[in-house]
């Protein structure tokens, strides 16, 4: 078999227990058998097979956060099917366009997968259940109201007749779906599948190394590509001497793009080796001299500008500052950081003889990938299909910027009729990210004679993610990702001003796990400073500024209680606490830390409380909390330095990731209060830095205001 069609791909997926495996060796007879047992599409989300297996379509992307399973749980809960028979497949982006976006948003970010699709997914499950029951009732000539369902079996009580979903699915699929407004959803307290620790659907294959990640795509006659982009962002290719490369073993060609050069070969290592032999002359443009120092100066100047746009202005801050008994002021800074997904950026593209362009890639947004491929390929959306592969991490890198998909398509365009798989080297990946923005923030607080905060003034100098990736999202000069945690803080401070200095160096910025989380570090460490200046205990100081019914307060209290706040600690161990909300959830975190005489930090225990309204898969939520904690511990020593217009770091030796030995004990307390839906993929990241740094202050009396920092800065005198 030379090609695999979408239809075959779906069938292979279903045949292998819904694992996302690409198999090209399945004999035609197997396909024929599968084709005979075609599942019925009861709703766009739900396929039911004659043997009662249920395939749930997933529109968002699974990147380790577990929402694939959570989304399936919500559908299955209302469908009342047998969870043991549930499998999944990705909804096809191409069909999505042809079917008028029937699967809603495919975007996976903002911890929004579950919370923004839960209602229509639960309704899809409930609608399908009603259609299945109605189909059975019709066959029995009874009223649907006299039928019950459990585990995918419909029962008519009076006549004791039973039929499984698989037997009536075809008939159900021909019925008109019920009016969405009449579909009733279960009270979450009655959930049996959702809200429970069901095993994640993707794990069994992952321990076998079976899932096909973007880099693992394997197609007949496939070529491999490695790419070099202009080291200075926004620069271009001036000239390439590829004479030596083209003579190297396995090399099939060199592709010169506007801002990159790629070598295509029969093996990725050969492609990458040949790439190194190219003599590329770059046009670096106007940014070849940009440095950390020039960027810092730009941010600093922003802080002092007059007439900056306000993200928040209440009361009279200048008057309150004048009337203050004490004014506390501080500046905090944090650097650019890359996502450093373990799987580098990758895209496989294939211009097929039938005129279709197929792309296989790791993406947080199948639709965005399709749009990028369509643009780069010069083909209408209908002529493009995107096959969503397993993601080797996302963290925001693989959503809005689809740079790597465009490159993959441009390269494959030179090899029409052949699939070409482009994989970035780690060095390219680290030096061509869409980085967490650098930022510099000045905060000023006024205290009255009783040590209460009467005013807070924050000025945030930070590149705008939205200006680069979603300019329509900027409102009145404000990028909400840059001002969060200040613009929306719930501390009851009567006079507040939050100003935003949008400063955009040429370094690309993007949505890094919990975009804007630096502000939690700044605000919650500064609040600690202010508490200290007021002579108040940090937890009590915060609680005094949170309204009784504020969910931030409830979650902070839950965290403090679980963390044994105020109780004695082992010698040399100190606590810190922080709270901030985001991504629909309310969170607080307490950390227990020791600092040795060399100035090295050891985080022993982290207690995390989160109110996300509802919890769909508690264990997956706990896993997200654990991951967020160690992900963010890296902030203490990671940085991307800008030198000569480019990122100085190139691999894990100079941009280290946290290791096993640094993993603290993480205790997660899920305290959902209901009535709203919050996320889990990112909220756990918000308070890691401030909780730990506040504990470091308790341990050393030293206030760290700049990330990263060295052990020397904490060395005991």
């Amino acid at each position, binding site marked *: 078999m030379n090609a695999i069609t979408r239809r075959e791909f779906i069938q292979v997926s279903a045949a292998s227990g819904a694992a996302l495996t690409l198999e090209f060796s399945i004999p035609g007879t197997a396909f024929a058998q599968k084709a005979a047992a075609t599942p019925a599409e009861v709703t766009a989300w739900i396929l039911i097979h004659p043997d009662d297996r249920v395939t749930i379509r997933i529109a968002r992307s699974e*990147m*380790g956060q*577990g929402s694939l399973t959570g989304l399936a749980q919500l559908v299955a809960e209302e469908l009342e099917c047998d969870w043991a028979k549930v499998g999944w497949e990705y909804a096809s982006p191409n069909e999505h366009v042809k079917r008028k976006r029937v699967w809603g948003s495919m975007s996976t970010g903002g911890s929004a997968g579950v919370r923004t699709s839960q209602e229509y997914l639960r309704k899809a499950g409930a609608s399908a259940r009603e259609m299945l029951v109605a189909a059975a009732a019709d066959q029995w000539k009874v009223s649907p109201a006299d039928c019950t369902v459990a585990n995918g079996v419909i029962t008519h009580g009076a006549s004791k007749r039973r039929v499984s979903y698989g037997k009536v699915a075809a008939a159900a699929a021909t019925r008109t779906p019920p009016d969405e407004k009449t579909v009733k959803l279960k009270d979450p307290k009655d959930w049996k599948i959702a809200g429970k*620790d069901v*095993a994640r659907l*993707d*794990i*069994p294959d*992952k*321990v*076998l*190394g*079976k*899932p*096909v*990640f973007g*880099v*693992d795509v*394997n197609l007949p006659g496939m070529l*491999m590509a490695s790419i070099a982009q202009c080291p200075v962002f926004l620069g271009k290719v001036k000239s390439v001497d590829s004479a030596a490369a083209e003579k190297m*073993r396995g090399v099939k060609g060199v592709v010169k793009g506007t801002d990159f050069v790629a070598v295509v070969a*029969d*093996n*990725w*290592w*050969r492609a990458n080796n040949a790439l190194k032999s190219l003599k590329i002359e770059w046009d670096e443009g106007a940014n070849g001299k940009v440095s950390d120092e020039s960027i810092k100066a730009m941010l600093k100047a922003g802080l002092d500008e007059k007439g900056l746009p306000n993200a928040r202005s209440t009361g009279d801050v200048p008057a309150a500052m004048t009337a203050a008994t004490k004014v506390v002021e501080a500046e905090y800074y944090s650097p650019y950081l890359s996502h*450093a*997904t*373990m*799987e*580098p950026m990758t895209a496989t593209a294939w211009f097929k003889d039938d005129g279709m362009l197929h792309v296989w890639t790791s993406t947080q947004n199948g639709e965005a990938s399709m749009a990028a491929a369509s643009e780069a390929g010069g083909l209408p959306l209908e002529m493009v299909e995107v096959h969503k592969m*397993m*993601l*080797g*991490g*996302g*963290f925001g890198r693989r959503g809005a910027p689809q740079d790597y998909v465009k490159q993959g398509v441009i390269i494959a365009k030179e090899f029409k009729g052949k699939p070409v798989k482009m*994989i970035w*080297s*780690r060095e390219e990946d680290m030096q061509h990210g869409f980085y967490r923005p650098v930022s510099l923030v000045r905060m000023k607080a006024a205290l009255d004679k009783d040590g209460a905060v009467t005013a807070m003034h924050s000025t945030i100098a930070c590149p705008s993610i939205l200006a680069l990736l979603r300019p329509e999202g900027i409102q009145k000069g404000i990028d909400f990702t840059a001002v969060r945690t200040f613009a929306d803080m719930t501390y009851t401070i009567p006079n507040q001003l939050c100003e935003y200095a949008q400063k955009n160096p040429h370094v690309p910025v993007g949505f890094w796990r919990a975009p804007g989380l630096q502000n939690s570090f700044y605000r919650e460490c500064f609040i600690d400073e202010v508490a200290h200046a007021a002579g108040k205990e940090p937890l009590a100081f915060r609680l005094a500024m949170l309204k009784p019914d504020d969910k931030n307060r409830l979650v902070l209290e839950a965290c403090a209680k679980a963390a044994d706040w105020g109780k004695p600690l082992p010698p040399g161990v100190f606590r810190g606490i922080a709270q901030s909300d985001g991504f629909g959830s309310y969170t607080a975190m307490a950390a227990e830390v020791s600092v040795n005489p060399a100035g090295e930090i050891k985080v022993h225990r982290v207690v995390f409380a989160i109110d996300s309204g509802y919890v769909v898969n508690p*264990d*997956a939520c706990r*896993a997200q909390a*654990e*991951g*967020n904690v*160690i*992900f963010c511990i890296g902030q203490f020593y990671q940085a991307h330095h800008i030198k000569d217009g480019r990122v100085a770091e190139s*691999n*894990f*030796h100079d941009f280290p*990731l*946290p*290791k*096993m*030995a*640094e*993993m603290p*004990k*993480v205790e997660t307390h899920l305290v959902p209060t209901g009535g709203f839906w919050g996320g889990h993929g990112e909220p756990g990241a918000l308070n890691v830095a401030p909780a730990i740094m506040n504990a470091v202050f308790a341990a050393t009396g030293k206030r760290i205001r700049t990330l990263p920092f060295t052990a020397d800065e904490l060395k005991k005198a």
Partner: protein
Amino acid sequence: MISITVNGKAQKLDVEEDMPLLWALRDELKLMGTKYGCGIAQCGACTVHVDGQPVRACVTPVGSVQGKKVLTIEGLSKPGLHKVQKAWIEHAVPQCGYCQTGMMMAAAALLQKTPQPTDAQIDDAMTNLCRCGTYARVKKAIKSVAAGGKSAPAKA
């Protein structure tokens, strides 16, 4: 021609001697379970066993394993799931899963050599990088294997 045995099967490869074992496995033998992460032996996503020892395939020239036995994740589960893989399922270790094949190969090698590792021995041996942050569960799973699979699972 370079002769190596991969997962019990003799293979002859017509490749450069200095081609890293990783790319011989992935692009020549199409064994995609072994991952590329850094190319400089920092992350361990490419960990395989050569004659029973864990090695980082991205910096191991395929010529250097001539005549040796290579075991990859695809071979670890034969005939049935390896005890490490069972523990990984029980403790719901993987998140994105990308680093996990290398992580499991490293864990299997550790437990082969040190059946009852201490926390410090686990920290020393398991230097693989995981961006999702599955370390606590990796450790729990390793310890459950060491305890004969008796420790309580991570899930309630």
